[in-house]
């Protein structure tokens, strides 16, 4: 787009008839030449640039002109630099000059303003701190109460467990009633074996003799069939 714009500019703004060819017209080289990051062209790779010799008189004269110009320019820059420093030091344009009394008064005024600000901020801070303290106290109180409730619940639960154990201890087998418990156990053998038929009926006992009748009465239905 820019390239098109450039050509348009050269063509329309500088017609060939008026300027006498392209020798005077603007030349935009930016979009024509090789980008800087590409390597040297193959055709230019082994080109050896000619080193032009200056004659003695030309060299001497150019050196003299160069020295003269550079010295003059450095001197002008030094002059302007010193002028700037001088103006900065002596000028009163950018600031107002005060007498010592006025300066002192100004300083006192600044100090008072500062103190007022400090006082206002201190008030705000005290209020804030008091509020924060109250909030903290309330929070701690709440937590303490919650803890008390929690403790009580825990105690209650422990109590109930103790009562339950006391209740259960009546049926414990102890040294005294050990013989009786053994006798009872021997007298009532328990057979945990059982069989299940396809319908899910449960038949208790290993050596059971009960047979499935025409309409058997199942002892128990397996719930999780």
């Amino acid at each position, binding site marked *: 787009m820019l390239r098109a714009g450039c050509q348009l500019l050269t063509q329309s703004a500088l017609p060939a008839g008026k300027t006498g060819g392209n020798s005077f017209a603007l030349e935009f080289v930016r979009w024509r030449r090789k980008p800087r990051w590409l390597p040297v062209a193959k055709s230019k790779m082994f080109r*050896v640039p000619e080193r032009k010799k200056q004659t003695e008189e030309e060299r001497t*004269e150019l050196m003299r002109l160069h020295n*003269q110009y550079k*010295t*003059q320019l450095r*001197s002008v820059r*030094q002059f302007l630099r010193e002028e700037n420093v001088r103006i900065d030091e002596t000028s009163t344009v950018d600031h107002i000059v005060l007498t010592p009394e006025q300066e002192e008064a100004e300083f006192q005024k600044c100090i008072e303003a500062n103190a007022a600000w400090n006082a206002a901020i201190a008030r705000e801070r005290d209020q804030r701190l008091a509020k924060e303290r109250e909030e903290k106290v309330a929070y701690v109180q709440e937590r303490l109460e919650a803890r008390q409730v929690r403790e009580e619940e825990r105690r209650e639960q422990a109590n109930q467990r103790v009562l339950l154990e006391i209740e259960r201890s009546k049926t414990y087998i102890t040294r005294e009633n050990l013989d009786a418990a053994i006798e009872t156990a021997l007298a009532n053998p328990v057979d945990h074996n059982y069989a299940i038929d396809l319908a899910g009926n449960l038949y208790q006992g290993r050596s059971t003799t009960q047979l499935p009748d025409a309409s058997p009465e199942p002892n128990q239905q397996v719930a999780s069939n």
Partner: protein
Amino acid sequence: MAQKVIKYIGRTTDFRGNTLWELVSELPNWGVGRLLIRNMFQRYPEPCYMRILKVQSVDEQPGEIRKVRVTVEKTWRGVTQPKPVEIYSTSYKADYELVPQEQEAKYLENKKKLEPVVLPTKIDLPPLLRELVSEETGNPNPQMKVHYKLTHNKLARLAKDGEKPTINFELGLGQPKPVSAKLYEGIL
């Protein structure tokens, strides 16, 4: 077979000689006390040479020509510098040459010496700035100080009180030197 002809290709150089490390590394005691020249400076009629005072070798860097740190007493255009000079950053240039001891007299007996340039202390302001300053200050011909920075090897100095400067920084083209007067024939 015909005589071998060496044909150089590529860019030419004005340097002639060896790098400093090539010279110094071959010599007994690193060539301390020997006379060195830079061929580039032999264009001046005044003698330019250096006397080696101390040599410190420097490790070779990959991909670079080997450098060396050499302290020399430097004489440039007949003026010997009061302090020794260290050559390091330019030691890679293949432009150094060792002077054979029997030829040292050739350089030492050359008593030509460059005269120091005396600069004026004050010069005129440029035209527009002069107008501005003279309008502000009322001084019809204001002048500014010449910029001058003292360095260890500068041969120019500012003129003292009542001394006549050897160089003139008048505004405009100035007076060309006799060598190049021919360039201005029919113009000035």
